[in-house]
């Protein structure tokens, strides 16, 4: 990863992108790029500028992808091990189709993907040791290793209401708060499914494949999404409000 970050062509292109935003034309050192990104008007809301900042490192970053054109996470490892990323909010992302995108982002606290529908990712948040809250949207699936070693995970939001979000493998939660012996996590689900808990039907998470095993560990607290602070997918909440 390090060799990729210091390629001169890469840095040249980043400098060009910054100059395009600022109207400048000067050469920059990487440290000057970080400063320049901070001066970009509206940079805090510009996902590209923020992404570049996170890429370069050097300051804590909340990544806000509130752009209707950003509908998929297919970054394929580009953000791996970026310890400056703290929070990600991507309200238009419906597809997560690359593996280990945020692997090793050890200061990541909060991941909000309320519109996520197609989650074809494995290991997405592997070893994000401080990750406390994840909004997994209406995704139909949690694939292998997605929450591996998420030892701080306290809130998981599953908004799918027509069927259970399938758990493809119990190893999705290995080393997390939901694993055997883990400290526990609250999972928020819609009332349409909450009302089926324990009835043994196809809509019962407690009886569902792989979820039933975790239920057996006693590490899940089920909660109803409606009426909770997380009901509004775009509400003003973060991991700090849990």
């Amino acid at each position, binding site marked *: 990863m390090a060799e990729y970050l210091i390629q001169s062509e890469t840095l040249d292109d980043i400098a060009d992108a910054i100059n395009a935003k600022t109207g400048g034309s000067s050469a920059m050192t990487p440290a000057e790029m970080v400063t320049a990104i901070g001066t970009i008007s509206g940079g805090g809301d510009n*996902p*590209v*500028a923020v992404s570049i900042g996170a890429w370069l490192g050097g300051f804590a970053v909340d990544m806000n992808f509130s752009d209707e054109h950003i509908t998929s996470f297919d970054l394929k490892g580009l953000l791996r091990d970026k310890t400056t990323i703290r929070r990600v909010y991507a309200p238009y992302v419906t597809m997560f189709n690359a*593996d280990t995108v945020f692997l090793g982002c050890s200061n990541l606290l909060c991941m909000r993907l309320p519109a996520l529908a197609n989650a074809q990712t494995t290991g997405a948040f592997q070893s994000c040791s401080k990750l406390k809250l994840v909004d997994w949207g209406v995704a139909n699936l949690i694939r*292998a290793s997605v929450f591996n070693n998420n030892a701080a995970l306290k809130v998981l939001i599953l908004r799918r209401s027509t069927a259970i979000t*399938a758990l493809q*493998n119990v190893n999705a939660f290995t080393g997390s708060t939901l694993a055997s012996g883990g400290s526990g996590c609250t999972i928020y689900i819609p009332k349409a499914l909450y009302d089926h808990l324990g009835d043994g039907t196809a809509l019962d998470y407690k009886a569902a494949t792989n979820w*039933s*095993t975790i239920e057996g560990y006693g590490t899940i607290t089920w909660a109803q999404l409606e009426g909770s602070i997380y009901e509004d997918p775009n509400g003003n909440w973060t991991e700090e409000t849990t």
Partner: protein
Amino acid sequence: MIVQEHFTINGREFIRTYSDAGRYVVRDGISYGEANDPAEFGRVYTEGELLPSEEQPTVEDKAEAYDILIGGAAE
């Protein structure tokens, strides 16, 4: 071949189902790398597609991602 193993958690019996050929196990159109179910449900699985190996990003993958970011910045 489908393999099933019994195990218990807190006194409750479960069945672990997996493929010894490295394939998904499939039920009701959903593919699982490994399926763990309460034994009383008697769920039946068939073998599906091969499980993917853990993929690591290639240089080409990184270049593509980089183009996405920088391409957006130049707009």
